């Protein structure tokens, strides 16, 4: 309970710069990137970085049996009606989607993780922490991902120094980020660009509706896995299904 109180205190007390300017963030990555959703949201990446920044050492001893509410966490992004000014990632034109199979099995390399009791007994590879698995994951092959946002440039630069990978299975080196460049733009493209929706926008928000707009039930703010954030939204184009 003490830890949870301390975590919540740090989240509420966390302050970050608010000198907002329209920005373009280009991330050069080494493929593949393992994803399970068509979109990579910039605000979700930043909420992870800010949580880690705010909690510091406590980030690594968060309670595992309950979730932490990060709705009060301050992000270095402009916010309009509960919606961050941050777009989804735009993949480059030569992107492809492939299916990859990942195998995990217990090897000698993991023996130093074992407790004394485990070292003396048998290791179960059909259940528990060392369970073997085979999993099929979609792998996105892309070299560049572009995001648009309206945020604090200096804070973004500082936070992105701690970002090394994108997507899932980063421990096996997927989605390694080679370089991140942040440039200023004249306009804020975090919601719309060239007549296209750039992020999930709840339909409660009064926005001009144009032809071909897609409405789906999707989350619109981080954490994106949380079903409580799901509502009817205008969604950006599915770049993978609709062709890159």
């Amino acid at each position, binding site marked *: 309970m003490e830890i949870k109180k301390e975590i919540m205190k740090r989240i509420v007390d966390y302050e970050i710069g608010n000198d907002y300017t329209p920005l373009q963030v280009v991330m050069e990555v080494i493929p593949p990137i393992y*994803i*399970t*959703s*068509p979109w990579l949201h910039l605000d979700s990446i930043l909420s992870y970085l800010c949580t880690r920044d705010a909690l510091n050492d406590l980030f690594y001893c968060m309670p595992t049996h309950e979730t932490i509410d990060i709705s009060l966490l301050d992000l270095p992004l402009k916010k309009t009606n509960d919606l961050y000014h941050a777009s989804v990632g735009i993949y480059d034109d030569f992107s492809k*989607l*492939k*299916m990859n199979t990942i195998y995990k099995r217990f090897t000698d390399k993991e023996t130093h993780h074992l407790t004394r009791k485990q070292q003396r007994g048998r290791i179960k590879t059909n259940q528990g922490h060392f369970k073997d*698995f*085979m*999993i*099929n*994951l*979609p792998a996105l092959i892309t070299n560049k991902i572009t995001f648009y946002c309206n945020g604090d440039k200096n804070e973004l630069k500082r936070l992105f120094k701690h970002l090394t990978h994108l997507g899932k299975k980063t421990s096996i080196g997927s989605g390694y980020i080679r370089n991140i460049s942040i440039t200023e733009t004249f306009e804020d493209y975090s919601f719309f660009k060239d007549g296209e929706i750039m992020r999930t926008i709840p339909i409660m928000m009064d926005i001009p509706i144009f032809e071909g707009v897609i409405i*789906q*039930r*999707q*989350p619109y703010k981080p954490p994106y896995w949380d*079903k409580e954030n*799901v509502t009817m939204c205008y969604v950006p184009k*599915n770049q*993978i*299904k609709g062709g890159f």
Partner: protein
Amino acid sequence: MDRRTKASFMMRSKQKEFKNRVKYSKKIIKNCFETFNKPYVAFSGGKDSVAMLGLILEEYPDVHVENWNHGSYLIPVEYQKEIENNALKMGVNPKHFHLGSSKQLEHPDARWDYMRWYRTMFSYLKRLIDSEGFDCVCLGLRMEESSARKWKARNPFNYTDDPKCPQCYPVHTWTWEDVWAYIISKDLPYLHHYDLYAEYSGWDNTRICTFFDDEFQHKNGIDGILMSEYRNR
């Protein structure tokens, strides 16, 4: 399906090996319908079911067909409608088309509580078999699918799983190429899902199973990308 893939499956359908397999399958079906009084076909809507149903309807157009509606959380309504329409397009007698469903599956929990699915489906099947008097079920299992199926479907008839209603596997020796060759050569309707997924998984690995189902998530991680509109319904 693109023109080149279609042409390759058409070529497969002209090979002797394929023709022998079709002949063998027809023999199994004949044997099944002569041995048992009232067999029925379990039709899932997948490619194996389509091929098997096509084969059976050639000889026995009045066969009883059973389809299970998994509920809109596991199979989107549009897909379920397409499966039913495909069965009717293939020539199934609407009076002999049994559509099973359960209210329990119309709940978000159906995605993770997979015992709910097993419980409802098998209790429905038991009721159906008792009420209609079915004494055999034709299933589209193939040995090639997995090592478990290789063992289960090694013989065309299985009397051990349910001695009251034995199982018959008419296409148990077929490969994925044979299945597609039969579907394409006979111009049978198949789910548009295959066209969508085959682009990424290949025609050999594409299979239909319940979407966003915890039991199969390790196999179908691609659902989140290609079927994202159904994830948060």
